[in-house]
């Protein structure tokens, strides 16, 4: 296919005069397309560079151990204290809890759509999952604030309904479509022969699904789960609105938390550009960026690890 284009140019013959123009007509678009396409690389490089450039100066103000192990996040008091441990713990706790809720449920939904659902209802189920994924996170955060929080406060007799459980639940809803859709793709790709073999051995559908299909698709499901975790770590509006925003290390599910993302979103607006507080927030951005890049590399590893399906 590639060759064909070149043959035309070399067989110009009597139209040789137009050969030069034609050649330019090929080289220029190719150059433009390639250089525009490269902007993706530039963009990613710029993101990493600017995050590090604005985040690194905080290390002049305080030490890495102070940031990583300090328990006090008081960036504007005098003297300021930049301990990020409670924020990191908040991010970890919310991510963990939401993943525990959403990953099994998402995989079960995917199993339903790929193996149990009647053919006619498949499209409906997939579209409704997709719509769930289209709900803006600010709307879910609002529901957490205005609907779930007051109920939770009354029913469970808590100090505040804005807490880790509320935010994790909503985060779970938010990452559910990602996990379910991607898992379904890999479950659906499991060859029918695998299922047939299991049925031929006398397996029930339940046994076939959980012992055969799920195992065959485990690689894809692991990827889906990691991508879900990745979204959960980086999600901002839900935790900003529903997690309570107290910079403490959570000990119970009813404790309010302040994950990294919500700290950035809540404080960046009032921070003067170039102040230590500004650099500290960029440092958190670096942390988040590196966590997601690491998870991304993990996904790629799983994807390329071994050719067998």
């Amino acid at each position: 296919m590639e060759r064909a284009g070149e043959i035309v140019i070399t067989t110009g013959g009597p139209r040789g005069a137009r050969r030069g123009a034609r050649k330019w007509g090929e080289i220029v678009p190719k150059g433009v397309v390639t250089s525009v396409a490269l902007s993706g690389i530039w963009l990613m490089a710029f993101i990493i560079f600017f995050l590090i450039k604005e985040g690194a100066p905080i290390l002049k103000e305080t030490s890495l151990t102070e940031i990583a192990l300090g328990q006090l996040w008081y960036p504007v008091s005098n003297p300021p204290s930049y301990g990020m441990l409670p924020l990191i713990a908040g991010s970890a706790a919310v991510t963990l809890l939401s993943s525990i809720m959403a990953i099994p449920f998402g995989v079960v939904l995917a199993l339903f759509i790929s193996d149990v659902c009647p053919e006619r209802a498949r499209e409906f189920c997939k579209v409704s999952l997709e719509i769930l994924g289209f709900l803006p996170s600010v709307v879910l955060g609002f529901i957490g604030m205005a609907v779930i929080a007051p109920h939770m406060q009354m029913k469970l007799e808590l100090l505040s309904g804005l807490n880790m459980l509320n935010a994790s639940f909503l985060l779970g809803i938010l990452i559910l479509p990602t996990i379910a859709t991607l898992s379904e793709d890999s479950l659906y790709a499991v060859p029918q022969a695998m299922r047939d073999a299991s049925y031929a051995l006398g397996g029930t559908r339940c046994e076939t699904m959980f012992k055969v299909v799920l195992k065959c698709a485990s690689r894809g499901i692991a990827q889906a789960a990691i991508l879900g975790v990745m979204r959960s770590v980086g999600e901002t509006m839900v935790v900003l609105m529903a997690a309570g925003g107290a910079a403490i290390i959570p000990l119970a599910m009813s404790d309010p938390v302040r994950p990294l993302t919500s700290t950035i979103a809540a404080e960046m607006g009032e921070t003067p550009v170039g102040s230590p507080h500004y650099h500290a927030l960029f440092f958190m951005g670096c942390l988040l960026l590196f966590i997601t890049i690491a998870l991304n590399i993990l996904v790629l590893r799983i994807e390329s690890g071994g050719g067998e399906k």
Partner: protein
Amino acid sequence: MSIYLLRRAADRASTAALYGCMALSAAVLGLILAFLAYRGVGAISWEFISDHPRAGMTEGGIVTPIAGTVQLILVSMAFAFPVGVTTAVYFNEYSRGGALTKALRLAVRSLASVPSVVLGLFGLAFFCVFLRFGASLLSAGLTLGCLALPTLITASETALQNVPREFRDASYALGGTRWQTIYKVVLPSAFPGIITGGILCVGRVAGETAPIMFTGAVFFAPGFARSIFDSVMALPYHIYVLATAGTRIDKTEPLQYGTILVLLALVLGISMVGIVARARLRKRL
């Protein structure tokens, strides 16, 4: 015999449980949508859609944030759409799978996984401060464009891959060069698919809050943004502001639900158009 019964019971139970899970998630989605529609519909009126916010945002309408969101979508797509389609053309038509292509793929994958709030930080440091665009429609739109770029690339690439090989061969056989083939045959055939991907992308961009919070969206603007260097109000940020920063939250409650309903109608409306268009395309293939 009893083991057989047990296994059959387990099978039935698991089927029921799976149906239950799907019903539960569909019910949660339905409940959320129905609740928001029920609470919001009372606030919707022509005045609400067409009036500027008044009296410290406790009265009036939301035409300013609606216009702002539309402007943000336009700016972000003006950046992301050409770049995204061109990148997809590179991947599908020019790339020979060398180191450059691998690096570009890795970059696009990483870009897709950057948390939106981190993109917001990047937008602040790069567009607002380094390029001196300030907190403006341009900065916020470009930041949203960065968010949309990876999705657009993937969608356009799928559309390009779906163009049958025969189309290209026919063009080459008629003496078309590679660029002529791309420009006159491949792109027009892939165009519906690319546009569908673009629409779905717009639906996602319209609801994003975190990337625009510190790059150009503001609590309040007296009127529409008249140039790309003005700051804008945006629907998602307006919801956040009304819900958290209002001094009279009880008084603005109808406004909050009304704004949410308008945002949902916008986002889900655009997305549904994309989903329906995609379903039609798939049928045609």
